């Protein structure tokens, strides 16, 4: 449950496609990046879904850039959360 302050945060999901055999390395690298609140390994179209929560859009940009730099991530799709129920 988020507190009212946290509700004002900018939230986004970053869906990542990972190079075969690099999942554990990618996970270890992702866990070190600040503002990431959850990481899930999934089946299907994407391999990993990352949830990022930041105070500003600049911060969000920095975090997505850091995710792009993680070795083993082939492709990412970032979707900003407009509303959450």
């Amino acid at each position, binding site marked *: *449950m988020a*507190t*009212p*302050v*946290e*509700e*004002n*945060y900018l*939230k986004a*999901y970053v869906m990542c496609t990972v190079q075969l055999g690099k999942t554990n390395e990618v*996970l270890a690298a992702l*866990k*070190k990046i*600040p*503002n*990431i*609140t*959850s*990481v*899930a*390994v*999934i*089946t*299907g*179209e*994407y391999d990993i*879904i990352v949830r990022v*929560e*930041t105070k500003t859009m600049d911060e969000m940009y920095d975090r997505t850039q850091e995710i792009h730099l993680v070795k083993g991530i082939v492709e990412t*799709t*970032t*979707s*900003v*959360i*407009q*509303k*959450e*129920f």
Partner: protein
Amino acid sequence: MTDRTTRPFRKLPRKYLFIILAALSGIISAIWVAIDTFVTKGIVVDSVTLESNEYAFAIQSMIIGFLVSVLFVLLLWIPISKKPFEELKMRKRQKRQENDDDDNVQEDDKQVHAQGEQKRHFSFLGQFIDPQFQGIYLPTKRMFLWLTLSGLFSGIQTLVYFILIKRMDISVFLPAAQFVVVYLIIGDLIVDKSKPATVEVQSIVMIVLGVILAAIELDTTSSSLNWFNLLMVFIVFNGSSAVYVIFQKKLTQTKDHHGRNMDSTNIRLWTLVFMALFTILFTIPFMRKTDWFVFKTTFVRAIFPVALSMLLVYVSRIFYIRALAMGKMSIVNSLASISVIAGIPITVILSFIWPQYFQITSNWLVWLLRGIGAILVFTGIVGLSLSEVKIVILGKVKPGEKCDFEQIKEIPGVEKVSILTGEYDLMIILRTRTIGRGYQSIVARLELIPCIDVLVSSTILKEWSS
């Protein structure tokens, strides 16, 4: 100080935190049931007949419990930082500015409001126990409805509880009280109109057999099942308990005017108000003159143990409600049933301290049956919690159609609905006991929503959260 998003991944992941909270709630429950047994058998006793008086104890317990709980919440409301005072100053300033020049006030209000939004992060003593606690506040109309209904069923449950602890050994009562899990699983199956999964059947059978085994009394006074007690505990106690849990879950999901859920401390306080009211109302018709006499003469002596018991109930319920907000209802109840196992050592320890109130049988067969029963119940529960799966569903909405996203949130098992920018329009997080049940939610519910165009579901293999 780091906030939730910048701190590293917490050592205790959410899924383990909810397990610990639920289990702690169960262990504390076993302790307060033991204290209540001690009070009913040792303190609230008719001085002439030497018989314990469950009705007098029920009313005493509710009155003392209510007063103690209010005092406890007031203690939790003590500010421990400057933030609440800053908030108070901000409000005063806002009020003063409202009385000033009309032209300037709107702009100033905006600034003050913006400052307030930044600072509105209260710091109370109670946040050590319940981080969501923001002070006592009045429930909304919808919350009031759920509180009244849960208070009504809790009143029935509480009265039956006081009758049963007089008649039953706590190591028998505690496993029997866990039968509520079976009702909740069956309730879930009826609501979902689905067939039970293998793991659910296994768990139900294990819990039922475990409860029956643990409830067999083979002591010197009776060598069979006490059917009256068992029917009271299975039908009345567990039935009202199941309905109470459903309304409490509804209450935890209801949002106030600010879009916030009620915190567990407020839920407990307000539930207690209604529970005390209904318990007293249901007990009064059973009270005779002699019962009122016992009530008066034993009231002072009962204050300390009842206060201690009610405080433990309070802490246990806060842990339980917090766990309920994190996990699925039947799983939380399953984990809280660790009290089944805790009841056995607590009974044995107390039988050494107060042998006159906690008489235990020396028949090894009874302890063997209770041990096997407790293990069966616990294994059934663990099986249920381990089978839980989480599914991520990405969806596209048909262009030009208005979508009621609240409708999606109403689907059983839907934990979160996020409206997204980009390739997909929405993401749904679904939490179910089995993949088959997840399929039911997707095929039977989500796909039938008219505005939904495309659904892509993926099972979460592993998850970490901060």
